[in-house]
Each structure stands twice: as structure tokens, then as C-alpha cells.
């Protein structure tokens, strides 16, 4: 059984300019490990979208990345407000992001659909007032 590697990050919502630092670090580490460019691209996009979401909607959170021989698992957990209507949130173009976020180039309503598109499985557990945990896997 090959070694399983785990990476953990805390995402802070205090400074939007730092958003993406976790995704950037994961991308560099996967490159060092010799993971295929296609898989790295999927992980980078899915994780960055998730990281941005955590900052926009949920005051930050925790990211856990597990790398095994077969797949990469991304778990993004926050204690934010929860997602009121997942079906709507999954529609391309539907967004609840405030104007301030749009002025920074995000909040087009493409985040969750794009995360789904770039992962092989995606599961969302959410409870209003408690938080959201998104788990994605990308096959290797």
C-alpha cells in the first residue's frame, strides 16, 4: 500500500488578497509529486473556487487534501451560514455574492458548477447556521 499524504490549511477571510494561497501551495506540491498536469489543473481549479467561496460566504474555514495512489480528496469545511438552496446554488449563473465581491472579479455564479465539472465526485453537506462541508475527489 502506497503512502498516503495529507495537507491541512486554515483559510482566513481577513485578507481577500491572500485568497488562493492554499490552492497555490497544493498545486506546487502536486507538481513536485509528479501528478499529471490534467489532474493538477482539476485540483487547482476546484480547490481555488472552493477557497474563494469559503472567504466570500463563510468567513474562512479548513481545507484538508489527501493524496493517495488512486485519487486526491479535497475536504473544505466551514462554519458559515450554510447554503439555503443547493439546487439553485448549483445552477450556472446563480449567485448570492455581494457587489463588493463582484467588483473583485468573483461572484458570477460559476463556483459550485465549476467545482463539480472539475471533480469526479462532489458531495455537499450543509446546515443553515451551522456550516458547509464540500468533499470532492479527483481520480488519478
Amino acid at each position, binding site marked *: 500500500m502506497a503512502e498516503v499524504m495529507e495537507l491541512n490549511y486554515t483559510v482566513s477571510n481577513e485578507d481577500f*488578497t491572500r485568497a*488562493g494561497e492554499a490552492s497555490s501551495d497544493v498545486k506546487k506540491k502536486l507538481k513536485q509529486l509528479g501528478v499529471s498536469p490534467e489532474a493538477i489543473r482539476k485540483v487547482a*481549479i476546484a480547490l481555488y473556487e472552493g477557497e474563494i467561496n469559503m472567504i466570500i460566504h463563510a468567513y474562512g474555514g479548513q481545507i484538508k487534501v489527501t493524496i493517495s495512489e488512486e485519487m486526491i480528496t479535497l475536504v473544505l469545511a466551514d462554519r458559515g451560514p450554510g447554503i439555503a438552496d443547493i439546487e439553485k446554488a448549483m445552477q450556472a449563473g446563480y449567485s448570492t455574492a455581494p457587489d463588493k465581491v463582484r467588483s473583485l*472579479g468573483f*461572484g458570477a455564479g460559476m463556483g459550485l*458548477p465549476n467545482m463539480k465539472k472539475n471533480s469526479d465526485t462532489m458531495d455537499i453537506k450543509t446546515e443553515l447556521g451551522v456550516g458547509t462541508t464540500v468533499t470532492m475527489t479527483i481520480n488519478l
Partner: protein
Amino acid sequence: MTVNDILTILDANCIAGKDGLDKEVLTACGSDMMSDVLAFAHTQCVLLTGLCNPQVIRTAEMMDIVAIIFVRGKTPDDTMKAMADEQGLPLLVTPHRMFSSCGKLYEKGLTGGLVDG
């Protein structure tokens, strides 16, 4: 087409990431919405944008974008330039507006790539 060719076509200046000037460019994406860039940009693509903040550089990093072209003379700050230098990601500044910049590149044979490709 290389990033160097784009410098000439768009009367642009390269203000960071000069290591990447010889890279080959296959497609282009013009948007101020990074959400859309993350959803629609193709590989070996250049990004044309009027948005000027560090998330533009991060988005380019995640998407393996070959170079960023800031239109309408928008000029990145030192933080953005340092991020780009680290990645060898050329930052180009052109005085032309978005529509004209896209048009000039399209005229020289660069396209947006296939829909859903």
C-alpha cells in the same frame, strides 16, 4: 504566436515575468470576471482583463495561463509583479481598450478556442 509577438501587436510593455516571453500562445480569453475565466479558459491561453488585483495573478496561476494582458493601461502593483516574477508569468500592459485588443489579436489569427472544448 508567442507572448513576444503579442507585445508588438498590442503596443504593450512587459512589466514583470519576462522569463515567459518566449512561450507559445494557442488561445485567448477576455474577461474582468475571474469566475468566468476559471470556468471557461483553455490551456495555453492568454488572459486579457481590465481587472487589476492579486486574484488575477492567482487565477492565472491556477489555470496555467501563459500571460496576462492588462488593457486600458491598468498597471499592476509591486505585490502583483512579485507574484508574477516568481511564476515566470509575463504581465503586459497595453494602452488599447478591451475590444480593440481582442480584435487586434483575432486579426492575427488568435481565437478563443472551441466552445465547451
